[in-house]
Structures are given as C-alpha cells and as structure tokens.
C-alpha cells in the first residue's frame, strides 16, 4: 500500500492506494495515523478511493486507528470507500461507526 499525506485546513488527509491487508497495508496505516496523532494532528481523513480491498487484519487496524484517535481527543473519518471496501464496511457494520463521506470538501468541513 502507498500513502501520501496532505493538509487541508486543519484536517490531515491520507490518500491510501493498494490494499489494507495483513503484514503490510495494516502496518503502514497504523504507522501513518500514529505519526499524525503523535504530531498533534487529531483530525484525520482516510481517503479510501484507491483502496481495492481490505482483509480482517486491515479492518481491525482501521478500528484500532479510530480508537487511538478518540483516546487522544481526535477523530478518524472515511472518504469514498469503493466497491469491495464499501461492501466490507457494510458487512462488518462499521458503516454505522465511521463518519463516511463521498465529497472531500464536505468531509473536511465536518470536523
């Protein structure tokens, strides 16, 4: 998985591409979000548009990031989950846990 981090206003947007899976994508995701939280950036938007799929380890890490942000008084929200990723969020009922947006501007404004 590849990531780039952008700052839009007060929000850190992580553009993810590839898959969030055990032993690779999940670790990258954890490290990137941890870096932001450690740097005091507590408003994190994960852009999932180019993520093709996740496995249970990747989904678990998504939840872990959500909880770690919350513990620090921050939030992790999701942008544009695609076909399979959307299916997985629905299946796991995480669709109701995360705030999920299809427009970046709207997502950024919501923090």
């Amino acid at each position, binding site marked *: 998985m590849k990531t780039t981090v952008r700052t839009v206003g007060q929000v850190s947007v992580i553009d993810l591409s590839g898959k969030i*899976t*055990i*032993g690779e994508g999940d670790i990258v995701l954890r490290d990137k979000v941890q870096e932001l939280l450690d740097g005091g950036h507590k408003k994190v938007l994960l852009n999932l548009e180019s993520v093709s*799929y996740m*496995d*249970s*380890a990747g*989904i*678990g*890490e998504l*939840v*872990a990031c*959500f*909880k770690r942000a919350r513990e620090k008084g921050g939030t992790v929200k999701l942008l544009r989950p695609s*076909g*399979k990723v959307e299916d*997985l969020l629905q*299946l*796991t*009922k*995480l669709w*109701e*846990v995360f705030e999920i947006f299809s427009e970046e501007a709207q997502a950024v404004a919501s923090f």
Partner: protein
Amino acid sequence: MKLVFGSDVRLVDVAHAASEKLAGVAGFDEDDALNVGIAVREAVINAIAHGNKMDPKRRVEVVLKARPRSLEARVRDQGTGFDPSATKDPTAAANVLNTSGRGLLLIRAFVDTVDFKFREGRGMEVVLVKKRTPRGTLKDDSSSARP
C-alpha cells in the same frame, strides 16, 4: 491443486493470489474470483495464527478443486481445532469496535458454504465452497426450475 507451506504470514498473499487466479481460470468473474481469494486468505490467516500459532515449522495445506459448477478450497492446519459456534458475533454492538474477530464473518460472506472439520492428530480443516453461476449457458440450467 495443492499448496503446502510453513506458517509464515507473508505467504498469505501467495495463497490468496493462487486461489484468486485458479477461480479466474475456472470461469469465475473478476469479482467472484476476488471473493474466493479473500475467503481463502482469511482461512489461511486463521490456520497460521490460531491453528499453528505462528510456528513456522507447522504447515498449512490448501487444496483447491475446480468443479464444473463450483470451486472448493480446503484449508488445513496442525492445530487443536476450535468450536466455530462459540465465536462472538463481530457485528454485535458490544463487539463492533473490537480490533479482531471478523475473519469468519468475511469467509461466510464471500463463499456459499463453510464447513469445519476437526480430527484428532490431523488438525483443523475448513472447507469453503463457492458456486459458479453459469453465464450465458441457460440451456445447461434448464433442469433446475426457476421461480
């Protein structure tokens, strides 16, 4: 086709790739082939992590069989088995924020049937079957009446 490998988590990707490709050559469309790949991936993660407890010397076996109307994947480990009915529902309100416990949910969602077999001394075997919906071969299907 049979795949045999030690309990190295990096090999999960290889088992996934082989299963997804086999589903593709067996005639599943791209999305269903990915579903097969993800289901096998989850079963292999469980075999490595829970069954074999990450011991690289313990082996995982994946046996893939393409049939005319289905694909079967058997994932075996060398562990002590478990009771699948005793696992927690990861979608229940109390569990939805757990950071693990979703593998079986994904497996069940992505294939049509899942069987768990445990035999003393032979470890756990998880049997996944994905049915193939025939495309454009309606003739073949005329025997099974449709509503």
